[in-house]
């Protein structure tokens, strides 16, 4: 009996091959979809735990640089809080500020795994749905933009890095909008497309996030290093990224508190049409 099964299986290796390949492509297509959270990714519990414990072992190697970075950021933020400014009228006055409502909440997370040398790069972090992280949230770091959340499990999340074939971020240079894409060539340089040639863009101009689509406004993206005339009416602008993906240790996941409201409104617009 066993021989017969072996014989059939050997004889039909081609069928096994086709079956497995079909299943693989099913997984690939299913995981390509933003909405469906697949199981085969680094945010699943087993892989997440593994990366987290490995990261615990190696994290101390970068402690010094990380401390310096955090201290720097602290200093910068201290310069922005209200107590850093003198109030000429009355310093003891309690300001009940209703004009400014918080619309972004930042969730700090530690990077437990990151790739930068691939064509499609991902980052795994040690926070997940339990900490309020949801799909498609923006991810930034003190230096600049990092990517978008693509998969979330209870305690881990995978992030599609800016260095990903499918990543596209709305960016602004000198007030002109364009979309930032990665071509897979250099992990420190992205292309900014869609900026019309009628505007004047120079090498050295700063590129910031536009504030559209889940990223807060004015997050640094990088600096223009080359301006190429494209084939159509738009430039192809080479942007040197300000985020150093190789040294990434901590990131902030951005929770846009009005996202549901905005989405509902857009859906209603869609229904009305």
């Amino acid at each position, binding site marked *: 009996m066993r021989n017969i099964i*072996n014989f059939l*299986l*050997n004889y*039909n*290796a*081609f069928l*096994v*091959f086709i079956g*497995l*390949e079909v*299943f*693989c*492509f*099913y*997984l*690939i297509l299913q*995981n*390509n979809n933003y909405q469906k959270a*697949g*199981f*085969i*990714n*680094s945010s*699943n519990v*087993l*892989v997440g735990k*593994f990366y987290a414990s*490995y990261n615990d072992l190696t994290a101390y190697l970068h402690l010094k640089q990380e401390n310096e970075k955090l201290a720097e950021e602290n200093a910068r933020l201290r310069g922005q809080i209200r107590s850093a400014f003198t109030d000429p009228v009355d310093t003891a006055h309690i300001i009940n500020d209703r004009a400014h409502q918080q619309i972004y909440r930042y969730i700090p997370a530690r990077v437990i*795994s*990151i*790739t*930068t*040398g*691939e*064509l*499609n790069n*991902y980052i*795994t972090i040690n926070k997940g749905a339990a900490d309020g992280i949801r799909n498609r949230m923006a991810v930034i770091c003190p230096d600049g933009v990092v990517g978008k959340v693509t998969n979330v499990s209870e305690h881990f999340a*995978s992030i599609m890095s800016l260095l990903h*074939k*499918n990543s596209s971020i709305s960016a602004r240079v000198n007030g002109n909008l364009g979309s930032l894409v990665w*071509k*897979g*060539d250099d*992990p420190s340089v992205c292309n900014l497309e869609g900026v019309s040639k009628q505007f004047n863009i120079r090498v050295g101009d700063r590129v910031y996030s536009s504030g559209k689509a889940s990223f807060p406004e004015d997050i640094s993206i990088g600096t223009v290093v080359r301006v190429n005339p494209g084939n159509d009416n738009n430039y192809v602008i080479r942007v040197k990224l300000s985020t150093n993906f*190789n040294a990434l240790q901590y990131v902030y996941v951005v929770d846009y508190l009005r996202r549901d409201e905005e989405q509902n409104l857009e859906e209603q617009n869609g229904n009305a049409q």
Partner: protein
Amino acid sequence: MLSNLFTILFRFALLLLIQVLILNRVEVPYLFSPFIMPLFIIRLPIETPRWLLLLLAFGAGIVLDAFSDSMGIQAASLVACAFTRQYIFYLFRPGGGYEPSHRPVMSVMGTRWFVSVTIAMVLLHHLLFYLIQIFSAGLFLHLFIKIMGTACLSVLLILLSEFLFYRPRSRAT
């Protein structure tokens, strides 16, 4: 058979660790990170039934996919490698064909055989892996050159890794 299976699993675990903890994290200037998992397919015993070969390749690919967020692309290309292995081995068969004592390792089959098989396997794996990744975005020439360069690097690494498992000819693995 059981010790054989244990060896295979151990080798897989070791290659997986090298891949996800070291190779995936290095950034090679102008190229992508190299892959050494094709070595796992090459090193499976010659007499492995084809269906088992395919299933092992699939399992290895899925685990690797989970660790590197490649969604099933590694599994797809490794299964294709496993399916093609028989033809590649046939192409580079020794003068008298394969004998029961033959194992697909450098110390038994010789350097020339091993290098040829590795090159064929790695080229197949890398081409499939990157083609599946970019088939939606169109093929760029500079990516093709990068893929070829990465394939060369992986061949080199696999040949180096083979020495991890190197045993003198007289002793069995």
